[in-house]
Structures are given as C-alpha cells and as structure tokens.
C-alpha cells in the first residue's frame, strides 16, 4: 500500500494510465453523442431542445460528484496525512468549477425555450449557482495561501464544511423554490425517462467521469513534479524524457 501511495510510483503509474483513460473518454464521448444526437428520438413535449440534457445533466452530476471527491480526499489527507490525497483534493476544484459553470449555462440555455426565460430561480439552478460560489470560495482560498501544505489543509477543512452544508443548502433552496416558483413543483416521484434517452445520458455521465479522472491525473502529475522538485527522482524524470 505504501508503495502505491508514494508520489514517485504514482507519477509513473499515472503517466501510463492517462493515455488509456483518455482513449476511453474519447470512445465514450463519441458513442454517447452519436446516440444522443442521432439515435434518440425527440421529446414529446420539448422537441429537440431536450438534447441539451445530454451535456447538462452529466455536468451537473459531475459538479456534485467532484465536490464530494474533493472533500473526501481532503478528509483523508487531514486525518491520515497522505500526500497523494492532498494533491488529488487540490486539483479537483478548477475542473469541478468549470463543470458547474457548464451546468449553469446549459441549464440557462435549456430554460430559455422551456420556461421562456434565460434564468429562473429554479431549485436545481439555484443550488447549482450556490455550489459554483462554494467552488469559487474554495479556489480563492487556495490561491491566497502560498504554502501548498497549508493551502491543502485549509481548503480541506473548507471543503468538509461545504460538504456538510451542501445537502442543507440543497434542501433549503428546494423548499424555498417550491414556495416562490410557479413553474415547477416536484413532489415525491420517480423520474420517468425512456430507455432510448437514458442510454446516451448514462453514457455521457460515464464519459464525463472518466474524463475527469484523466484530467485529474494530468494535473496531479504537474503538482507532484512541483512539490517534489528537491528530490533526485524528479531530476531523473526531467532528464529522461524531453
């Protein structure tokens, strides 16, 4: 276990993994988009506009997922003092924030034909917006601490506080929204979605997840190089390849 957690070993492992993960991402994306744009039929109410869902939903899902990963890795780093967890946690935020942004904009682009307005204080859009603010706060804190170890631990605490708060925020926004928003009322019920639409959706979610890990690995390799620049193995790595 210790061997796998050493930055040196991980650097090499990640270097071998990235091309494979990148290839998998590309295949998943191509199949998902093909199914989503060409095979899946139009929706009975929203027509073709619902196809935005195939990027919106994965982005929204990833925005939550990445925050959870970030906080989880942060907790591991805080408790067991594992460097790799620290590094992983620190590279999550920019990717997560960009997915949140994507979810917000595509949600807005969906809202225009659906609700007739660019922005509605819909429960999901609103909590996504607050999640975006949480990411921004996280990145601002990360950027203003120079020492990477201190930055990692401070942001891990922030992420943990955020993760406790996210369900609370989500619930309160949902409740608030149902009181004020005439457009949608969601009570208990199962989402009903036709299999021909579900398949590309799941494929896209999977593609985005693999994509995230690919990017995270690349970022982690950069971070490892920078943090370990005093060691001899980094010097060797720098010489070996151009």
């Amino acid at each position, binding site marked *: 276990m210790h061997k796998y957690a050493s930055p040196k070993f991980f650097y090499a492992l990640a270097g071998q993994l990235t091309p494979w993960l990148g290839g998998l991402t590309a295949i998943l994306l191509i199949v998902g988009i093909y199914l989503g744009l060409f095979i899946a039929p139009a929706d009975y109410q929203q027509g073709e506009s619902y196809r935005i869902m195939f990027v919106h939903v994965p982005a929204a899902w990833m925005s939550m997922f990445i925050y959870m990963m970030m906080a989880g890795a942060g907790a591991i780093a805080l408790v067991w003092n594992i460097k790799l967890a620290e590094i992983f946690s620190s590279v999550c935020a920019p990717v997560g924030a960009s997915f949140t942004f994507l979810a917000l904009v595509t949600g807005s682009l969906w809202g225009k034909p659906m609700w007739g307005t660019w922005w509605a204080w819909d429960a999901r859009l609103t909590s996504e917006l607050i999640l975006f603010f949480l990411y*921004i*706060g996280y990145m*601002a*804190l990360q950027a*203003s601490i120079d020492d990477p170890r*201190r930055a990692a631990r401070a942001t891990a605490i922030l992420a943990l*506080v955020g993760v406790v708060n996210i369900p*609370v*925020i989500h619930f309160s926004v949902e409740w*608030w929204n149902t009181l004020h928003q005439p457009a949608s009322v969601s009570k208990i019920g199962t989402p009903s979605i036709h299999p021909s639409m579900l398949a590309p959706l799941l494929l896209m979610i999977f593609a985005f997840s693999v994509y995230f890990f690919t990017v995270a690995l690349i970022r982690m390799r950069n971070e490892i190089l920078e943090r370990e620049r005093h060691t001899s193995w980094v010097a060797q790595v720098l010489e070996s390849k151009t």
Partner: protein
Amino acid sequence: MPPLLNAIGCIFRRDITVALRRSTDILTPIIFFLIVVSLFPLGLGPEPAALRSIAPGVIWVAALLATMLSLNRLFANDHADGTLEQLLLSPHPLTVLVLTKIAAHWALTGLPLVLISPLLAIQMHLPPQAIGTLVLSLLLGTPVLSLLGAVGAALTLGLRGGGVLVSLLVLPLYTPVLIFGAGAVTGVIADIDIEAQFSLLGAFLALALTFAPWATAAALRVSIE
C-alpha cells in the same frame, strides 16, 4: 470551580472587556446594519406595502452583511499580538475555548442586531405580529452566522485580502439561514403556520454548534502553523 470553566469564564470576560474598550469595533456593524436597511426605502420609494413585502429579506441580508463585517474582530487582533498562540498552547480543549470566543462575539454583534431589529421592523412597516417573529428568527439565526463565520475567519487568518475572502467563503454557507429566517417572517405576514421554519433554524443552530467549533479549531491550527 474546575479549571476548564474558569478558563471559559476568563476568556469570555476578556473578549467582552477588550471589545468594550474598542467600542467603535462593536458599533460599526450595528450602525452599518441600520444604514443599509434605511437605504432601501430611499432606493425603492416609501410605499408601505412594497416595503413590507421586501422587509424580511432586506433585514436578514443586512444582518448577514453586518455579521460579515465584524468577523475580522474574532481572531485577527489576537493573531497579530500573539495571544492566539497562547490560546493554542493552553491545556484545555481548543474547541471549547473557540466556542467561548464565538459566544463572546455573538454577544457583542448578533445580540445587538437582534435588539435593534424591532426599530427597523417599524421603519419598514412590518405588522406588529411579524416583529416578534423577526426578533425570534434573528435570535436563532445570528448565532449560526457567528459560528459559520468563525470557520471562515479562522481559515483566512493572516491572508492577504482576508476581509473580502472571508465573504466569498462564508456567504454561500449562509443561504439556508437566510432562506428560513426571512421565510419565517414572510410566512407570518402571509398568515402561514411557521413552526417548521423555527424548527429548521433550531436544527441549523444545533448542527452549527456541533461542527463549527471543531472546524474552527482545526482551521486555527492550520493557520497558526
């Protein structure tokens, strides 16, 4: 008296004494609260019905911002003069000591806001039955603001741009309190049963009391290092 209680009493008294001797520090957020709320009628017009409908939100947002302004006082001075280091080196659990400091902070920021809010409620033409609700909702909500704010203040200790940074970190976390605090007052105006809102504000308070002192203590340890 057991040493821990003794230490708690001592720190609480010390923080209150220091704050009272720098009275501008306490007054600034309160005056800010007054001014911000008073500006809204000037911007929106004095129509009582319109003011009444926005009053709960406006007063609550102003309370949020006023609390933000005062967060700096919580740890920054102690950090600058080295007394925070001494606090960390005390044999007592830091979580408890931090909670004491937060309590002192609330007593000098949150509590005055609560006490002064009826004045603003009258200014904003809130109906009499809503004034009590407003005071009660602030009484339950402002401690949460101090508790969550302490985490932000501890994380940004000694960083450049600390003041603005703390608002980025903390304001998004304040949304649930804002929603249910203002929601309670709006509900009472609309004559809806609002026990649920108060229950939830109480739940937030319990949750914040459980987690925030611990997170603040951890953040202080990181920031002091």
